[in-house]
């Protein structure tokens, strides 16, 4: 298999995010754009075990999206990886679509579905109200431990999410139960919906807080594929501890007029802004 060019994959992810959000007319841009490199690595880096033709395969690594408003980056990555047709991306947030505004995982019993639409393959959790996926990931890691399974649980959360007390409850329990295959990746983009994180609710010293909760902490540049890759070689060194990766990213990464501006947290591009953004992305200028 030829080595996949991750920067190009990431650029395509960003292009799709812009298109999807412009077509939807609502949604969250900054976080999805900022974490595109991570998602390129997760679904195309060859490290994380997922199967697009067998999405619920028992041995898969679980990718939990706790910051459910990052949905466009996950959806795009799943479609590009073959979990469902790419053309479906244009249905984001539209009536009857499997691509809900925030991620949803719905359990079926004996073929009984109680959801207004079909389940999107590859989605592991329901997310949106912040903090919930962090606990769900702990439950999944406990389940894996109980069953003696070796897969990893990779939970992607955001820094703003850490305002929620539930995240800290979850960290304590992950630490108590020594969930060594559980990796929390925290997108440290320093913005949230109403402003910069240091103004809305300061989090520093974030690494000290996490360490004191019993997590093994690593800080990386979320736009550097070597550093993203290092998460997985590093994490195996501490089998008895859950991990927290503080992933520094630029919100809105790749589009100069979106970068580092909290106003893009919860806003989509207009059609004209989308064209400008796509031109910049196609120019390969990812700053």
């Amino acid at each position, binding site marked *: 298999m030829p080595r996949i060019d991750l920067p190009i994959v990431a650029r395509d992810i960003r292009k799709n995010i812009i298109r999807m959000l412009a077509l939807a007319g609502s949604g969250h841009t900054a976080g999805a754009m900022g974490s595109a490199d991570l998602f390129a690595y997760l679904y195309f880096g060859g490290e994380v075990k997922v199967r697009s033709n067998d999405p619920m395969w028992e041995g898969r690594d679980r990718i939990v999206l706790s910051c459910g408003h990052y949905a466009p980056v996950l959806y795009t990555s799943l479609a590009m990886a073959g979990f469902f047709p790419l053309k479906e991306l244009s249905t984001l947030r539209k009536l009857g679509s499997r691509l809900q505004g925030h991620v949803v995982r*719905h359990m079926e019993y004996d073929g009984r579905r109680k959801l207004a639409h079909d389940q999107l393959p590859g989605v592991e959790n329901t997310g949106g*109200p912040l903090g919930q996926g962090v*606990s769900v990931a702990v*439950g999944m890691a*406990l389940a894996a431990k109980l069953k003696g399974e070796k897969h990893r649980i990779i939970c992607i959360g955001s820094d703003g999410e850490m305002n929620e*007390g539930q995240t800290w*409850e*979850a960290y304590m329990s992950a630490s108590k139960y020594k969930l060594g295959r559980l990796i929390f990746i925290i997108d440290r983009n320093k913005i949230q919906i109403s402003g910069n994180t240091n103004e809305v609710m300061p989090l520093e010293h974030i690494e000290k807080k996490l360490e004191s909760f019993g997590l093994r902490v690593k800080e990386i540049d979320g736009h550097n594929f070597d550093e993203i890759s290092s998460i997985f070689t590093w994490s195996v060194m501490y089998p008895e501890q859950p991990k927290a990766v503080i992933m520094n990213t630029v919100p809105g990464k790749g589009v100069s007029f979106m970068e580092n501006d909290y106003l893009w947290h919860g806003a989509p591009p207009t059609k004209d802004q989308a064209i400008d953004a796509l031109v910049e992305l196609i120019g390969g200028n990812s700053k």
Partner: protein
Amino acid sequence: MKYLVDDISTVEMKGDRDGFGEAMMDLGKRNEKVVALCADLRESLRLESFANEYSSRFFEVGVAEQNLIGVASGLALEGFIPFAASYAVFSPGRSWDQIRVSVAYTNANVKVVGGHTGISVGPDGPTHQAMEDIAMMRVLPNMVVVVPCDAAQARKATMALAEYKGPAYLRLSRPKNAVFTSKGATFEIGKAQILREGKDLTVVGCGPVLYAVLLAAEELKGEIDVEVINMHTIKPLDIETLVRSAKKTGKVLTVEEHQISGGLGGAVAEVLSEMLPTKMKRLGMRDAFGESGDPDELLSKYGLDREAMVRAIREISVVSK
């Protein structure tokens, strides 16, 4: 079907939470998919034995009800059948958003167990007396809501909920209550039980307070012929049994240790007002918080003891004649 013990005047006293604890031990042995989680109340929720006997399948998350529910959801998504227990004022009280999103919307096979419900919690006072939990839970799509009436039924309900695939809420109380259902009585989720047949008036109740209803009905024998329905499943409500009985008697009294809004009384009123408008009265907390006291004193003061039932039954019978 005969649901009652032979003589309801001499009954064993036992906590419905003890029935739950016994069922969990049974499930621990029978079904390795069953796991239990608790938020620092394992003795109170009668999970101590399960925690000791099946320690690898018991998770103590500390005083953290939001995480309790989220972790339970994660276990359910991986195929386990988690029973997540705390006091109802804390869960669903503090964990309702987690229940809504990670359990109900996700349709996760989590059994939320809320203990210490009703005014009969007693001396701990209103902070610990859950009087709103049925309303909170029954409004959630995909959620089943079960309120057992005694220890024997709590045990059967727990077993039934482990079999049932999907989100559910089990409501338990604190005191030792009369065990008035028989050992052989069946339990089926969503199937109401006619504990006593009558033609003048229907009392629809749930939980241990039904014992006072039965005593009141007995006291009124010869004067008013009371039908008593144990509506142990608030959701899905057994509409057929309810409407059939209301049609027969023409008068319905609801009884619950819960606010009169949103709980059993609310559910019954919703159904009857649409399908068969019927003269009704609701007994329960009347938009108020309670206070500390002995359970019996509180049940008496807040109109949920036998005397109050007799009064209410007479009142509604007279008014509508």
